[in-house]
């Protein structure tokens, strides 16, 4: 049982890590908890189902199943990035210089809006994604591993490696780090901070879209409120790793997935959704800087 729970936790952990990256990047730059990020992930899942349905209608899925899956992922990424950057433009940019709680309340507004918009337009029932991967898989010891789980782990790892190189090696990545360190100084040395913030939202949303895509493959069932709980868990993961820190979000996500998987297996699965909150509260109270410490100073 340990191995089975471990693998399940690990798979979910990679998904949390992808979402957590979006939280942590936005927090690093704007010191804003992007409360709507869970909803962005939910949009990613819905867009996967919608574009897959569209491709089925076009008759592509019968002949080229793999191609159509990849296409629906790409469509989802493009669309969701557009949504993410729109959210930033509409709900956060006008509040750049507002008191700190204003953008958070605005983000809650975005979250409620998106959730209910999807419920209104797509219905309150579950949406089904046709099971395209075989469920057979292979066994390691006593545990079963499915192809989807392998896909999730591989795709997430590749995406994270890409992100790491993007942040550390490219000029845009350098500009992002500069804006995260000090927004005013960055703008003084000629960085277009609004553009960098928009790019951050695009990347964060794209990662959330990939997470949504993979969860859709994994569970085949999605609903309009899936983003709320996943968002909180990913936020917990980001805090666990040290919010603002990119490796922290990766490690935090995987760790949280493992904690949750093992706790659900050994303690009680009824309280499955409560573990993340308990971890979150404990971390915030004991070590609010997270595992990867980034010094926080109080500015007067």
């Amino acid at each position, binding site marked *: 049982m340990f191995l089975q729970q471990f693998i399940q936790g690990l798979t979910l952990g990679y998904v949390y890590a992808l979402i957590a990256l979006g939280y942590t990047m936005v927090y690093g730059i704007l010191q*804003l*908890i992007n409360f709507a990020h869970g909803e962005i992930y939910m949009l990613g899942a*819905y*867009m996967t189902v*919608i*574009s897959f349905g569209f491709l089925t209608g076009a008759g592509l899925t019968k002949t080229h199943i793999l191609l159509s899956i990849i296409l629906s992922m790409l469509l989802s990424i493009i*669309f969701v990035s*557009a*949504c993410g950057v*729109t959210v930033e433009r*509409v*709900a956060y940019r*006008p*509040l750049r210089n*507002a*008191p*700190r*709680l*204003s*953008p*958070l*309340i*605005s983000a*809650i*507004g*975005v*979250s*409620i*809006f*998106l*959730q*209910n*918009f*999807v419920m*209104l*337009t*797509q219905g309150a029932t579950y949406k089904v994604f046709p099971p395209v991967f075989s469920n057979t898989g292979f066994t390691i010891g006593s545990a079963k591993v499915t192809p989807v789980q392998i896909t999730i782990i591989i795709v997430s790892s590749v995406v994270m490696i890409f992100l790491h190189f993007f942040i550390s090696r490219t000029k845009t990545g350098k500009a992002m780090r500069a804006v995260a360190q000090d927004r005013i100084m960055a703008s003084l040395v000629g960085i277009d901070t609004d553009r960098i913030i928009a790019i951050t939202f695009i990347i964060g949303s794209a990662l959330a879209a990939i997470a949504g895509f993979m969860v859709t493959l994994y569970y085949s069932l999605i609903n309009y409120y899936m983003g*709320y709980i996943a968002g*909180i868990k990913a*936020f917990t993961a980001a*805090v666990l790793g040290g919010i603002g820190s990119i490796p922290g979000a990766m490690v935090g996500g995987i760790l949280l997935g493992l904690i949750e998987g093992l706790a659900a297996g050994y303690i009680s699965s*009824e*309280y499955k*959704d*409560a573990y993340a*909150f*308990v971890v*979150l*509260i404990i971390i*915030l*109270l004991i070590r*609010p800087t997270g595992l990867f410490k980034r010094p926080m100073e*109080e500015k*007067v």
Partner: protein
Amino acid sequence: MSIAWLMRIPNWLLIPAWFGVLSFPFTGAKTAIVISGGILGAGILWRFLERTIALSRGKKFSLFEQIKTIPSTAYLYLSLSVALLLPFITSPYVVDTASLAGIYIILSLGLNIVVGYTGLLNLGFAAFYAIGAYSYALLNTTLALGFWESLPISMAISAVAGFLLGIPALRLRGDYLAIVTLGFGEITRIVLNNWVSVTNGPNGIAGIQRPSIIGIEFKGVTDYYYLVLFFVLFTIFLINRVINSKAGRAWMSIRDDEIAASTIGIDTFLYKLYAFTFGALWAGLAGQLFAAKMRFVSPESFTFLESVLILSMVILGGQGSIGGSIIGAIILVVLPEILREFEQYRMVFLGAGLIFMMIFRPQGLIISRHNKP
């Protein structure tokens, strides 16, 4: 990336088209066209209004600037006259809605102490509401305590919960505190849902007694309305006294600048804890009133959305203003009742409304006299 041609499209055309594109996969082509048409129409109407007013006044005119500067007394008189007219449209349904509004007034007044006066964002306020409601439900059904005997107990239990959460949580700042309170709210709900032996889980607790005075039961909706009205006035009176006391001044100074407040000798932690506990006390009262009204409680009534709804009342009405909380609560309870046929759109509008308020009128409808910029 050559998107330069996009820049040449004027905004009044680009924005509606963009939102149409974004909603297309979810709504289908027809509704997407309706949405972008709606935005386009609203934009044109907006411009048209600005133009006509500018022409008649002979100078440039911006509606946004206008919204930002409508004097809050205008809203006050408007809302007061509506509130005064309400009892004359006497139907049991209106009175029943009014009692529900009364419960929410108490809740939003309680949350306003925490959010509006002290500047601490609490996203789990429904937890205290739930604790108050469940306290009465359990005291009444298992210990057979009456309404008046349990009232101080359930208020005290709520306040103690606020106190106990506050001790660790108030060391955190700003948005971290918000997230911890959110976590507390969720944990409370999950526990209520799963602790079946005590709370009867998702089925809730039924058969709660109605309140009564000297053997006379508060039976009809009107009786109950007067009970709620009494408690609303009691709450307004007490909160008003506290706000204008030393503690109230301390809260507002913490909200305006915590570091400055601590340098003039205010024990910020203690006063924040006081605000947290005092706010939770009123949630306990509202919870008990709710349980007595419905005669049934279940975890479903105390979700995160409930917390957001109460928060929206505080923000809509105006943070740090008693009149604002009252009007915010009334609007958000009464408006969905009036617009019953659009009920499904309620939450969409609530979300959009929160964004709109934050951008164009963050101070709320009623600007507090303590709070003038």
